C-alpha cells in the first residue's frame, strides 16, 4: 500500500483563508494531548499557556518584546519567500546584525552621544544585510542551494558570537563571565511607556516595517516584480525583471530587517551581548511568516501568537512545572499543522492498494 497526494482540481478560497485557524485549533488539540500524556490537566495547562500571560499589563509588554523580533524578521522573510528565495538563515543574520550594531557601545564605550543609537541601528542593518548577501552571492554566482548555505551560516554566526563574548569582547570588569560590558545609556533602545512595562521601540519598528513592506508588496512595481519572479520566473524574465538582482534584493531586505531585530533585542531587551541572544527567533519567524500567509499584516497577528507561545512556555514552566522544551514542541506542531493544512487544501490523500486496484473504478449504481 502506498499513499499518494492527488492535486485537487479546484481549491476552496474559504478553506484557504481559514487554514491558519485550523492549524491553530489542531495545535491546541495536539497540545492538550501532549499535556495529558505528561500527566498534567490539559485544560489547566492550556490556560496557563495561552490565557494567563494576557491578563496583566506588564505581561502584555512582554508579549510586545517577544513579538517585535519575530515580526521584524518574518516581514523580511515574506519578501524572500514570495520571490522564491528560501532564506532559512535569519537567525544568523539576527546575530550578525546584533554584533555589528554593538560595535560602538562595546568597543568605544566612551563615545557617548545621541547619535550613537541611530548609528547602531544603521550598522545592524548593514551587518545583517551583508551577512544575508553571502548566500545570495553563492546562489547567483555558483547556483548553490540557498537553503543549505543560509542555514549553515547560522552556526557560523552563533559560534562567532560565542567566541567574541568569551574572548575579545568580554567585559573587562565582568568577573570573567562570558558577556560584553553593559550598554551605556545612549546605546539603549528606550521603552515606549516605561511606567507600565518593558516594551521597547523595537515593537514600533516592527509595525512600521510591516506597513512599509505591505505597501511595497501590494502597491508598487517592485512588489509586483517580487511576486512575478516568485510565481513564474520565465514570465518575469519576459517582463525584463532580473532574477539575480531579485535574489540580492530579497536577501538584503530580509537580512537588514533581521539585523535590526537583532540590535533591538540586544539594546532594548538585554542591554549587552551574551553567548546566546535569541531563543530561536530566526527560525520561529519562518513559522510566523507562513502562519501570516506571507502577508505583512497577517504576520503582525501571527507574530503575536508565536510570542504568546514563548511567554506561555515560561509561565507553564513556573506554574505547572513542564519543561521549557514544550515551547519548541508547540512551535513545531504549529508549523507542521500550517503546512499540513495548506497542503491538504491543494491536494487530497489517496491510498493505493497495489493488489486491489480494481476497486478504484466505483460503479455509479453501486
Amino acid at each position, binding site marked *: 500500500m502506498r499513499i499518494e497526494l492527488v492535486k485537487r*482540481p479546484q481549491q476552496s478560497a474559504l478553506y484557504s483563508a481559514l487554514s491558519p485557524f485550523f492549524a491553530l485549533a489542531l495545535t491546541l488539540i495536539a497540545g492538550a494531548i501532549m499535556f495529558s500524556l505528561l500527566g498534567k490537566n490539559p485544560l489547566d495547562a492550556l490556560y496557563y499557556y495561552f490565557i494567563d500571560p494576557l491578563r496583566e499589563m506588564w505581561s502584555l509588554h512582554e508579549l510586545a518584546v517577544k513579538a517585535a523580533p519575530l515580526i521584524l524578521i518574518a516581514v523580511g522573510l515574506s519578501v524572500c519567500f514570495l520571490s522564491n528565495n528560501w532564506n532559512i538563515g535569519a537567525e544568523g543574520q539576527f546575530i550578525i546584525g546584533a554584533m555589528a550594531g554593538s560595535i560602538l557601545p562595546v568597543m568605544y564605550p566612551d563615545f557617548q552621544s545621541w547619535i550613537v543609537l541611530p548609528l547602531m541601528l544603521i550598522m545592524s542593518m548593514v551587518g545583517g544585510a551583508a551577512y544575508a548577501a553571502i548566500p545570495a552571492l553563492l546562489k547567483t554566482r555558483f547556483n548553490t542551494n540557498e537553503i543549505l548555505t543560509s542555514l549553515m551560516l547560522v552556526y557560523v554566526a552563533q559560534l562567532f558570537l560565542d567566541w567574541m563574548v568569551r574572548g575579545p569582547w568580554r567585559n573587562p570588569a565582568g568577573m570573567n563571565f562570558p558577556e560584553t560590558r553593559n550598554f551605556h545609556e545612549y546605546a539603549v533602545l528606550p521603552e515606549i511607556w516605561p511606567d507600565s512595562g518593558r516594551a521597547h521601540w523595537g515593537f514600533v519598528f516592527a509595525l512600521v516595517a510591516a506597513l512599509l513592506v505591505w505597501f511595497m508588496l501590494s502597491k508598487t*512595481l*517592485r512588489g509586483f516584480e517580487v511576486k512575478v519572479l516568485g510565481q513564474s520566473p520565465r514570465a518575469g524574465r519576459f517582463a525584463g525583471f532580473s532574477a539575480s538582482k531579485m535574489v540580492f534584493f530579497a536577501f538584503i531586505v530580509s537580512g537588514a530587517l533581521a539585523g535590526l531585530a537583532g540590535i533591538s533585542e540586544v539594546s532594548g531587551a538585554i542591554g549587552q551581548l551574551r553567548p546566546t541572544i535569541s531563543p530561536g527567533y530566526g527560525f520561529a519567524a519562518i513559522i510566523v511568516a507562513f502562519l501570516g500567509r506571507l502577508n505583512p499584516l497577517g504576520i503582525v497577528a501571527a507574530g503575536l501568537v508565536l510570542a504568546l507561545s514563548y511567554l506561555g512556555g515560561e509561565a507553564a514552566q513556573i506554574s505547572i512545572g513542564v519543561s521549557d522544551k514544550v515551547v519548541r514542541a508547540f512551535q513545531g506542531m504549529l508549523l507542521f499543522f500550517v503546512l499540513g493544512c495548506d497542503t491538504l487544501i491543494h491536494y487530497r490523500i489517496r491510498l493505493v492498494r497495489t493488489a486491489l486496484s480494481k476497486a478504484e473504478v466505483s*460503479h455509479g449504481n453501486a
Partner: protein
Amino acid sequence: MTATLETHGANLLEVRGLTKIFGTLKACDGIDLTVGKGEIHALLGENGAGKSTLVKMLFGSLEPNAGEIRWNGEPVRIANPHAARKLGIGMVFQHFSLFDALTAAENIALSLDDETPIATIAAKAKALSYSYGLPLDPYSLVGDLSVGERQRIEIIRCLLQTPELIILDEPTSVLTPQEADKLFETLERLRAEGKSILYISHRLEEVKRMCDRATVLRHGKVVGHCDPRKETASSLARMMVGSEVLSVVRPPAEGAGKAATLLEIRNLTRKPATPFSIPLRNINLSVKAGEVIGIAGVAGNGQGEFFEAVSGEATQPDAVTVRIRDKDAGHLSITGRRMLGAAFVPEERLGHGAAPRMKLSENLLLSRYATDRKAFLGSFGLVQGSAIVKAAQRIIEAMDVRKSAPDPEAAALSGGNLQKFIIGRELDRQPAVMVVNQPTWGVDAGAAARIRQALIELARSGSAVLVISQDLDELFEISDSIAVMHNGELSKPLPIAEATLEKIGLLMGGAEPGHVEPVAEVA
C-alpha cells in the same frame, strides 16, 4: 457498411447531460455525446467551447457537477485518470509529458503502474510501434527526438494499455504534413480493429477526411451532431462559431521596396544554452515597415532560441547583431528593446507570456510597465490600479476576450482567449516592430482569424511584423515572404508569390537552407 452497423449497434461511450461549472461559468452545460465502437468521432468547437473540459471529465481529471457517463451501457464514475485507464480510456495530450533526459522506453515505463522490466516494455513498444507503422527506437533519448517522434511515444504509451477509446487532443498541430498523413493511416488502422477514437481538432479538412461523425460544441453546449463528410469546411466553421468566419484579407503591401528596415538581424549565432537546445547558425534577416515575414519550420528547429535572441531575453555579445529601428540592440535587455518600439509575444502563454496566477490587469503591466510608465506608474513606482484595469478592459473589448469574471486570473481563461489578450496587450501600444512566436497555436478558427487580421493590419499601418509559426496555412495567409528555419539555420525569405507548399515543405525537411533561389529557378 460494417462500421456504420456497429456504430448504431453498440455505443462504447454514452454521455448524458454532463455539466461542469466553474464559479459562474458553465464550461459544459448538459453535454450529450455518444461514441460507437470502431468510429472516429470528431469533437469540434472554438476555444472556450468546453472541449477540453469535456475530455478532462471523460479522462477523470475533472469531476462533473451533474450528468452521467455510461461505458458499454453501464453508468460509471471516473474519479481519476487511473480509473479512466482501467476502464479502457486512453488519452494523448496536446502538450506532451515526457522527460527529455530519459529514453522512450523509460518514459513509457513511468506511466505504467506495474513493475514490468524496461526490456520487456521496450520490446513490446517496438513491436507495437512497427505494427502500427509508427517506427520508434525505444532506447533513443527523448531529447534527441523530433516532435512527431515524441508524439509517437505518447501514442504507443497509450496503446500499450490496450484502450478501447483513444482521445487525441489536437494531434496534428505540431506535425509536418507528411507526419500528419502517417498519423491518419495509424488512426484508420485502429478504427479497422474496432477501437474508437475521439478526435479533437480545429483543422476542419482533417475532420472531413477521417471522421465518421462529429459533435460540435459552442459556449459549453452541443450545437449539433453531424456527418462531417456531408458538410463543407465553411458549414462546419459556421456551426462552431455561430456565424460566418471572416476570411483574412491581406491587402498588397505598398512600396515595400522603399520602406525602411525596422528590424534587422545580422549574422546571429548562438551556442546551445542547455544540452537540449538548438544552436543558431549565422542567421540574417531584415523586416521592413509594412510587411509581414513568416518563419516556417518544424517545432524544435531553433525557433524558441531565435525568439529569445531577438526579444532580448538572451542578449548578444555583439550589439549590431540585432538592430531595431536603426539602433544597435544586441546588448539591450528585453525592456530596452521594448523601449525602442518592439513588442514580443512568446509561444507559451501560461508561465511565459503571462503569469498564470495573476489577474489580466497585472499581466498587462508585465510587458508594459516600462513603455507605458507614465500611464501605469506613479511616483515611487506606485502601480496605478485603476489605469491598468481600464487599459486591460480596453484590450478585452478590442480583442473580444471572453472570460468568467471582470478581471480573472490568466490561468482561468481558455488558451485562445488568453492568446487574444496577450496579442492585444502588445497591439494596444502600436509597436513599430512586432515579433510573434506561434500566434494561433491551439486557437480556434474565429479567434485565429481575428489575430491574423490584426497582425496584417498592424503591418499595413507601417510596422514590421515577424511571425514564427508551424502552421503553414497561417503563414501563407498572412505573410508577404516566408523563410524556413531548419536545424538552427534560416533560409532566405521567399516572396509569397513564389512560395509553394512543396518548396516550403522541402526546406522544412532540411533541403539546404542556403540555396533557396536555385531551387526556385528549377521549379
